[in-house]
């Protein structure tokens, strides 16, 4: 537990925990230990309050009313866009498009770039992608006749850089890469991957769904054309996420959906689309969710993303160290640079049994393929159990996780 001390002076985890009302409960008679943060994170009171406040005081449709409530709602909605812009260090708020989540953002881009993809072109992804960064590209390939290329990973769950580089050619027209793997925790060296792709003129989308709550992101420093994330993994509500796209990229893309709010003029002969980002935001958006996303980012900024990352890394280090004494436990994903995800299997015990048995001890872990079936196939396992850490988890909870694993191994006999 020594590694906690360096952070505990400045990082008040108990204060943070008190901001998350859901954590204060018992499950099956045991204190809840919530370690399924990579699936979705819990919400601080500030986020919950922002939703309540919006619906209590300001609810109205945006961008069209001249009345006071509509002006307030529009202002809050657009303020959230500024908050996201600053959080990602995008150069303009026009580069932030609100979506339902990372999945919709990837589909939006795949739909947009389809215009300049032809048969025989290649799209490059990696073997550690979440299904949401595989399937939209497969659909694009099916539609255009392009070919999906998959850069392999090694036994640690790290990208094989030489093979990645070898897959880039004149045929490569787009690349979509995970910043951090949800199943393995691997953090990819995306800055150098982006540079490598740009040397070959290949635009890049970074899937930041898993990275965004753990890693400071500066899209201008990265230089990627697109960066996507989901709010709900970032302590914000479900059903809201964002796409960052460089202005010139967004401007040349066709709209994803047609409807209200994305037009500047409609006649039955012709429609003129709105400007970026509105041309990608058809229909009444998730206004409350967007405001909640802004509130979540404000909350993270108060704690400090770097302090959060340091705390989570210390939890992971503690978990890895403790897990060494459990002989039956094998960690899946041992990259040198990884985020706070401990994916593991127990010899002779299926992850689903682990999931149920942990739940009975009040410990929420994920069991399954984590929407990354190709990763499971690569490691030759049907599924893994996964504990994933967030800003409010404690070293005592890591100890509870390990004790829980020991208990279920004993029960299995």
């Amino acid at each position, binding site marked *: 537990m020594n590694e906690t001390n360096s952070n505990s002076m400045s990082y008040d985890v108990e204060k943070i925990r008190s901001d998350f009302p859901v954590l204060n409960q018992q499950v*099956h008679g045991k204190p809840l230990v919530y370690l399924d943060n990579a699936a979705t994170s819990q919400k601080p009171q500030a986020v919950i309050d922002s939703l309540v406040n919006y619906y209590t005081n300001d609810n109205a449709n945006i961008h069209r009313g001249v009345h006071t409530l509509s002006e307030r709602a529009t202002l809050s909605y657009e303020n959230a866009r500024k908050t996201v812009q600053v959080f990602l260090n995008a150069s303009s708020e026009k580069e932030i498009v609100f979506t339902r989540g990372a999945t919709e953002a990837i589909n939006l881009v795949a739909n947009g770039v389809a215009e300049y993809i032809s048969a025989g072109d290649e799209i490059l992804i990696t073997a550690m992608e979440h299904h949401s960064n595989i399937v939209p590209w497969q659909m694009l390939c099916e539609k255009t006749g392009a070919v999906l290329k998959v850069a392999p990973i090694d036994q640690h769950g790290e990208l094989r850089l030489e093979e990645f580089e070898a897959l880039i050619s004149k045929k490569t027209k787009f690349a979509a890469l995970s910043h951090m793997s949800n199943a393995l925790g691997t953090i990819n060296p995306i800055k150098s991957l982006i540079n490598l792709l740009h040397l070959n003129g290949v635009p890049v989308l970074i899937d930041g769904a898993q990275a965004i709550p753990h890693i400071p992101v500066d899209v201008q420093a990265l230089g990627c054309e697109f960066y996507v994330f989901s709010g709900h993994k970032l302590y914000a509500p479900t059903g809201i996420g964002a796409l960052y796209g460089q202005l010139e990229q967004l401007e040349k893309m066709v709209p994803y959906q047609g409807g209200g709010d994305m037009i500047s003029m409609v006649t039955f002969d012709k429609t003129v689309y709105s400007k970026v980002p509105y041309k990608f935001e058809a229909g009444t958006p998730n206004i409350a969710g967007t405001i909640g996303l802004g509130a979540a980012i404000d909350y993270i900024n108060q704690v400090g993303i770097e302090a959060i990352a340091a705390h989570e890394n210390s939890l992971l280090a503690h978990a890895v160290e403790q897990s060494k004494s459990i002989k039956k436990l094998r960690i899946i994903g041992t990259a040198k640079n990884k985020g706070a995800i401990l994916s593991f299997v127990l010899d002779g*015990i*299926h*992850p*689903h*049994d682990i*999931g*149920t*048995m942990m739940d*009975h*001890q009040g410990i929420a872990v994920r*069991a*399954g*393929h984590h929407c990354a*079936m190709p990763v*499971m196939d690569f490691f030759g396992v*049907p*599924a893994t159990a996964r504990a994933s850490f967030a800003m409010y988890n404690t070293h005592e909870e890591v100890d509870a996780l390990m004790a829980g694993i020991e*208990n*279920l191994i004993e*029960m*299995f*006999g």
Partner: protein
Amino acid sequence: MLDDLRDLYQEVIFDHNRNPRNFRVMDDADRQIDGFNPLCGDRLTLFIKVNDGKIIDASFQGQGCAISTASASLMTDIIKGQSEEEAQELFELFHKMATGEPVEMDDLGKLAVLAGVCEYPARVKCATLPWHTLDALLKGSEEPVTTE
């Protein structure tokens, strides 16, 4: 700590999980079919040999959790020697039990050890996957079965 889980994880289930019965590929099977739970990745292949409307042999292969492995193990044991109609009726009965509908436990024999699963909605499909696979096989389907 985990004693209250004993209604789900009875010793018989651990036994069948450690030493599944009829866990083999049947090269001379009359019929075989794959079952798949896409949510969790559990998969099995079920084999049967039928003579004169009677199931004379049954076996399975695949990977799954303790609940689904034990369920497949118990199922292949119990249907051996049954007519196809009897096995079909047992499927209906098992399905009712697993989803919490009232059934006469005596009719289920050894399968009653899986009755606890109805209290665990996330695990019902683990227990019923082998049975849904059998149901499809008896109905003459050749398409893989999924529980979704």
